[in-house]
């Protein structure tokens, strides 16, 4: 029973530390920026991993969901309720951002009933282009110039909190009958259906949850940078997420954390290289595909990230029939 409370206690301690740390002066603004980016990237990575890792589809449209979350939340704080107290409006903005993105996940989910693999990837690409062009052409969202003057609400505690919720949510989904259904679709969709898996609901659940958390990440992103425009959410943004997923490991919570960590840190370290840094990451990806195609932690996880009942199971000795 004592162990049962250990993880929540540690997570709470983490939240306290994330709140106190900036006040101590131990971390400067730059480091805080990096840590917040890490949290946002981790949320993006785990959300994309649900579709690309656990379900085994290939979505390249995740920047679109992120954009919807970013714009929906920013419109709320900039246009609709400017000057509202952050403790009230920011949680609302995050949930709105997530929900709008989640809702947009529905049509993509419906389309995934009939299409798979490459074809579905093209649909997600089309979705991204629709979102981006849409945002560019609607004056209310600032057109191609984007939205300016977004309040700086995203701080370390908020980013940390959202990141924990995203991982907790995805973990609970993945280690439930719905999550097992999603993995079964990846392995063999026909067999999954024949074994009673309602593949349609499972696909919808995967796309909506995934889009929701991408939207949450978008809301955090908008209120971190204080400025968003449609070209922040182009195919390159999606590519960055793909790199994180396939680097860290498909269908893995720990891999999502690891992938986001490596990419965030490398992006900062390689800053002096300028545009050449866009060569290093893809090169890593090539090496990874050659030697470890499912990523560093593909299909496996650290046991502390799993629910208690799923940890270190000991096989029973085989009885005689």
């Amino acid at each position, binding site marked *: 029973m004592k162990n049962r409370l250990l993880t929540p206690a540690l997570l709470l301690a983490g939240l306290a530390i994330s709140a106190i740390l900036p006040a101590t002066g131990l971390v400067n603004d730059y480091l805080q920026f990096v840590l917040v980016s890490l949290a946002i990237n981790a949320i993006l990575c785990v959300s994309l991993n649900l579709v690309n890792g656990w379900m085994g589809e290939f979505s390249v449209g995740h920047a679109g969901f992120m954009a919807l979350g970013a714009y929906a939340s920013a419109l709320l704080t900039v246009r609709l309720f400017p000057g509202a107290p952050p403790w009230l409006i920011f949680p609302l903005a995050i949930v709105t951002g997530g929900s709008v993105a989640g809702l947009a996940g529905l049509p993509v989910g419906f389309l995934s009933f009939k299409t798979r693999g490459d074809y579905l990837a093209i649909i997600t690409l089309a979705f991204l282009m629709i979102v981006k062009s849409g945002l560019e052409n609607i004056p209310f969202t600032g057109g191609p110039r984007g939205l300016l003057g977004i309040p700086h609400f995203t701080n370390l505690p908020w980013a940390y909190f959202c990141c924990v919720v995203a991982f907790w949510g995805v973990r609970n989904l993945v280690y439930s*009958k719905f999550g097992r259904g999603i993995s079964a679709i990846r*392995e*063999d969709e026909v067999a999954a*259906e*024949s074994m009673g898996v309602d593949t349609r609901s499972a696909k919808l659940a995967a796309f909506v949850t995934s889009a929701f958390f991408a939207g949450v990440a978008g809301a955090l992103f908008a209120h971190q940078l204080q400025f968003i425009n449609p070209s922040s959410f182009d195919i390159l943004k999606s590519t960055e997420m793909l790199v994180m997923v396939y680097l860290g490991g498909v269908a893995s919570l720990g891999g999502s954390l690891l992938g986001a960590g490596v990419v965030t840190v490398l992006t900062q370290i390689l800053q002096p290289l300028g545009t050449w840094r866009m060569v290093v990451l893809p090169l890593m990806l090539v090496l990874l595909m050659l030697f470890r195609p499912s990523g560093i932690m593909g299909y496996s996880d650290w046991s502390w990230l799993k629910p208690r009942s799923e940890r270190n199971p000991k096989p029973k*000795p085989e009885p005689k029939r």
Partner: protein
Amino acid sequence: MTPLLEIRNLTREFGGLRAIADLGMMVHDSDLMGIIGPNGAGKTTFFNLLSGIYRPSSGEILFRGNRIDRLRPSEIARLGIARTFQNIRLFRELSVLENVRIAYDSHLKYSPMAALFHSTRLRQAEQGSTRAAQELLDLFELGSLAHERAGDLPYGSQRRLEIARALALRPSLLLLDEPAAGMNPFEAMKLLDFLRWVQKKFSLTIIIIEHHMQLVMGLCTRIEVLDFGVRIAGGSPTEIQNNPRVIEAYLGAEGEIP
């Protein structure tokens, strides 16, 4: 008494090809029915129609008196028709235990909300199904392999696991598509005993597609013969063995063979 399964005028066309033509059939509780026929006779198509993977072009399939020919495969599976595949279709990257748990999951009733919060009720339900899955694996002598990758199992164990997974649906009707494929005669005879035991233990009705004649003749109480999508004969194993049309379908007409 309503038969367990009734098939009326079942037809399935692929373009101009009639893979199943005007098929009628009755299957009663506890039957052990064999389906034989040359390659391309429409046997697997028939199973795909029964399990909902294909929709019939015309005709009806009734399970316990209710039409099932418009249902999705997952709905049919939940009603109690489970199947295995000719070319084993396990969830290869998942563990042996997870393979069986996925089939048990259809009996777990909890909402997505409960899943999101991992409620106590959910945890108990999951523990129950894990235990049931483990017990089923023990029965199939796969218990000690529960945490192995399903794709890593030897061929024979994969075949057994596929049957175990199908039984986790707690079906009343089990469809086996060439379970003895790739087995030598000795292994096939072991499979025969095993299937008899399974049928009694789980009080099942079984329909089996098989080319291994010794197995079919030894196991089945009734045999139906298909050729080019048409039922050409049906009856007890002895009747089938002596039926001239069956011999013709398999060996060609008399006088053709030198």
